[in-house]
């Protein structure tokens, strides 16, 4: 039992720390892509999904984690996953998170269009950067847009991809360290939340996607999340799994 030491764990698992940092930065950038509208969007007075960053990040992150965890279980039946398996696991997690965020945006748009009766439009751009559709005539007076226009939808899907990718990468790295799915997933959620909340302060709660002027603040969030993930990563890789203590 005394042969496990902190320094030993750090020396052995430095590559996992790098993986956790990369994952954390992916999550941080992903948050900037997701059209988060907050409370104004819930009242159809701003573009985006009508809830906060944390709820969206937690939702898509957990869906991605479930997908990644299932893939990990399937692939690890043949032995400890290597790099190619980890790519597959991260891809599965990314697709899981993309499905969740896309379904949220699609159903949200149904509610905005058929329930509230507003056309999806953004007030940040005169023309949709992807379809070229004019936006200004459809923005209701006194609001800053409503619903999810095409550009926000595409941006949100990219955000889900990055978030799911980052979350699954953190999960895989932790599984390498402790080999315990329960501990790894709860730590992955912890790292995920830290890296989702810091960028949400950076965008001050709302953003429309990559066409939003606030998107230019990404480097600040990347720097902050780099430091935060480094700290979390160093601590998380020093926690051995139960098997190291001779537990079940």
């Amino acid at each position, binding site marked *: 039992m005394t042969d496990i030491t902190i320094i030993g764990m750090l020396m052995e698992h430095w590559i996992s720390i790098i993986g956790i940092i990369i994952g954390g930065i992916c999550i941080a950038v992903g948050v900037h892509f997701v059209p988060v509208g907050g409370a104004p969007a819930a009242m159809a007075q701003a573009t985006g999904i009508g809830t906060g960053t*944390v709820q969206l990040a937690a939702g898509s992150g957990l869906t991605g984690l479930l997908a990644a965890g299932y893939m990990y279980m399937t692939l690890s039946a043949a032995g400890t996953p290597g790099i190619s398996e980890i790519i597959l696991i991260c891809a599965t997690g990314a697709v899981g998170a993309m499905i969740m965020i896309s379904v949220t945006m699609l159903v949200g748009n149904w509610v905005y269009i058929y329930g509230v009766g507003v056309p999806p439009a953004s007030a940040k751009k005169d023309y949709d950067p992807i379809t070229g559709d004019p936006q200004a005539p459809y923005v209701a007076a006194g609001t800053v847009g409503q619903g999810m226009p095409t550009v926000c939808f595409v941006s949100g899907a990219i955000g889900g991809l990055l978030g799911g990718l980052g979350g699954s990468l953190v999960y895989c790295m932790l599984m390498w360290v402790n080999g315990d799915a329960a501990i790894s997933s709860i730590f992955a*959620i*912890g790292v*995920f*939340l830290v890296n989702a909340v*810091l960028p949400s302060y950076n965008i001050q*709660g709302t953003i429309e996607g990559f066409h939003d002027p606030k998107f230019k603040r990404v480097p600040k*969030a990347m720097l902050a999340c780099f*430091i*935060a993930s480094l700290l979390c990563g160093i601590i998380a890789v020093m926690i051995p799994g139960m098997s190291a203590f001779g537990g079940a």
Partner: protein
Amino acid sequence: MSESAETANQVDAKGIVVGLVGIYIAGISGIPYLAFLAGIGAIFATKMGADAVRRVCSYGIGTGVPSIGMLALGMGIISAMFGLALGKMYNVVFIGPIIGLVLALVIGFVVGSLANKIIKLNIPVMERCLTEIAGAGVLVLTGLSVMIAGSMDFVVISEKVITTGYIAPVFILGALGILHPFNASLGPDETQDRTLVHSLSCGAIAMVIGGVCSIAVIDPIAGIITIVIGLAIWYVTFTGFVKLVKRDAGAGYVGTGLLPPGAM
């Protein structure tokens, strides 16, 4: 935000001291019937977190109050488990909660500085409050985990709390107790005693649910003791909260019962 009856230092001192004492008595004594003390520690730690949330969120952080609670528990879970694991690694189980607490305070301070210096939120109390919230997060998580498992041993906690999945309700209920009171009470007429009584009642709900989890894990009688004490605390604090709501209701209030007669 009105003036505070209890200063930040008083709330923090009570939270940390009661939190740690509760966790230590429950974790070291080895008597499952004393496990509820860790829950009481967690309730005081919840109050400490809620007071810090109240101070930092009155500046308006732009993302909604819940984000800061989830941030706290995200930092808290990693530090709490590291502390417990470190204690196990070096065979000094009793240092676990203190190591976790100190580590969380450090991470909280660093993340608070990142939010202020790099992201430029420019909230003067950000560093101090995030430090306190992270510390409260660790104490709540450790307290509820120790209460459910009846031990401070990392292996026991991983087997009985994490692998069983009870960590999920502990995580969310712990976060709710910290973030919900101010989120529910905020506004120009927010008062500190009302928010903090609300946090105690949220902490008591977490304790009751933790007690339900511990029925299957440690000992049915210990679990029932925890549930009964949690319910008693919840009843006292919740009636206290209702009283303060009536006190603070500026325009008076009219009791309508469960549903007004016309809605039946």
